């Protein structure tokens, strides 16, 4: 296991929301946010934060960046027992933060905009020029911010996050607006950074592409981290075994007559063929299907994907959720003491 560089222990932050009363129009209460998050960042690894809209990914990243102050819990710079609690200011020295979408605008040039941020970290001009080259903006160094495309703005934000050579890099939806080639180059860059020992936390909605990059996964829902670990650890934690995907010609077989366990299988019947995903194949199933004269085209094992993990962790299915933002009924809000509200 790699060295722990940062650890959140029961970190809590709840947004203040207006809850006016007739005689107290200014009344505010604590609403949604992050509840008792426990998370370890390992040196030179990429942690993927995955969760539905409103899960609290951005809030968690802002807490880790020292932008939102913790209302409870603490941040340690190594493992819980030997590590010391880090102040927000020290955290900001350690961390480079790339917000979700920075709309750089104005007549200021790319270089000047980055210099402005760099001066806050006491970064030299040569380092800034180097970073602009690294993110592929060297030809746009004197362009006004107003003339940048969304992808270029995203690159500039990445350069700003890399100022001061941070040990930890927090990236909120970094692939937004990047063209496929730039996205691939970006992923290569992330690999190089991890080789240098930089720990990266990456939040993205593009979950399928994410699996290729990340070393560890944290599933979030309603402000809570439901599971964290490697893909295999998370799958095991959620009792998700690998599945078997079978495709065949003609009509799909009635799997229930082979064994009771197959009642929960997913079958998709097309005009001339079918596809079935089984929790596990069980002994002798292929032989039984062949004996019953079913034409099998393919038979392969499949690891549970991130969406399945997320659905398993939240108790939701893709059909249930659709495009609706997750409802508060799924998980209760908890107070600092863990009591349900």
């Amino acid at each position, binding site marked *: 296991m790699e060295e722990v560089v940062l650890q959140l222990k029961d970190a809590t932050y709840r947004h203040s929301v207006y809850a006016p009363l007739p005689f107290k129009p200014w009344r505010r209460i604590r609403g949604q946010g992050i509840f008792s998050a426990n998370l370890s960042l390992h040196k030179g690894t990429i942690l993927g934060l995955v969760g539905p809209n409103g899960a609290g990914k951005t809030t968690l990243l802002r807490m880790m*960046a020292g932008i939102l102050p913790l209302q409870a819990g603490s941040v340690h710079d190594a493992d819980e027992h030997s590590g010391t609690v880090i102040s927000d200011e020290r955290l900001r020295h350690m961390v480079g*933060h790339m917000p979700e*979408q920075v709309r750089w605008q104005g007549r200021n040039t790319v270089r*000047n905009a980055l210099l402005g941020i760099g001066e*806050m970290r006491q970064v030299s001009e040569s380092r800034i020029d180097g970073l602009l080259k690294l993110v592929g903006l060297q030809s746009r160094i004197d362009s006004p911010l107003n003339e940048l495309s969304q992808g270029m703005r995203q690159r500039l934000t990445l350069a700003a996050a890399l100022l001061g050579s941070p040990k930890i890099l927090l990236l909120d939806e970094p692939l937004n607006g990047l063209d496929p080639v730039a996205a691939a180059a970006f992923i290569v860059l992330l690999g190089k950074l991890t080789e240098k020992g930089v720990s990266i936390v990456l939040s993205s909605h593009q979950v399928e592409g994410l699996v290729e990059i990340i070393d560890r996964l944290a599933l979030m829902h309603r402000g809570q981290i439901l599971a964290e670990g490697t893909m295999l650890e998370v799958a095991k934690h959620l009792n998700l075994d690998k599945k078997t995907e079978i495709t065949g010609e003609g009509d799909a077989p009635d799997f229930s007559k082979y064994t009771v366990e197959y009642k929960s299988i997913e079958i998709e019947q097309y005009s001339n063929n079918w596809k079935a995903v089984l929790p596990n194949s069980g002994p002798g199933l292929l032989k039984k299907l062949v004996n019953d004269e079913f034409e099998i085209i393919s038979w392969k094992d499949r690891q549970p994907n991130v969406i399945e993990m997320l659905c398993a962790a939240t108790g939701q299915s893709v059909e249930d959720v659709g495009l609706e933002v997750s409802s508060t009924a799924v998980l209760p809000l908890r107070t600092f003491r863990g009591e349900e509200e």
Partner: protein
Amino acid sequence: MSDFSRIMLFAKRLMQERLFSTRMYIMLPILLLFIPGMAWGFSDPNIILPGGHQPDTAMEVLFYASLGVVFGATMCAVLLSYDSVSRERASGVLELRLAQPMPRSHQAIAMILGSWRAILIPTWILLVLSVLIVRYRIGEWLSIIDCLVYFSSTALILLWYVLFTLLASSYTREQGTAISFGIGLWFLFTFLWALVTTMVAYASGVSIGQENDAAWIMLEGGLDLLSPNGVYHHLLETRLPQIDRGVAVWQSWAMALAWTILPSWLFVRRMEKILP
């Protein structure tokens, strides 16, 4: 690099952004018209003001010409700084800045200094031009102390308007609300304060607008301490012995200090707690 140098460097960058912005180019003719223009007009040797008064010293001419600062420069201060926080917040640049190790209080001070200097530099240049115009027109130089009071009072009134606008900008998420607040406040202190004074005078049983009524003059002088424009004029009046509105010199400077410290403290405190 020391904290002070870092603040000054950041302030300089913010100042340059505003000083060379399009809106500054739009406002420069207005400033030119209001500040040296008024100095030119009030220094006319044949001018007779309402009431038959004729300004006869350089300080008196510049006191009347300070209307240009009150009407033009303060408005420009509002227009230059109204989006200092709200725009950065809406674009996401504020989040990036808040993630930097520079303390938020230092960032706030740099914002104040940057926005303030962006309007102060052109205004001071135009004030120097006004002093030269007055010298040319009436043949009298402003004394060193008069100069110090005139320039520092003008710097202070601009700072107050910058602070109000920055505060509004930090509380609002929309730039429209920020500018409405800034202009509203400017309107209140520039045009509506006379109405407030009249209402208080009426409620207190003081005869309204009687120039020779001591009670009215005292009341107006006292209420003016509650307005930045009023305090500005009180500061200038400290160099005009013929004007006495019942407010001591120390009271004027004490209120100037209060108008400076309180909004500055509120803004720094606000920036320490601001959310992206």
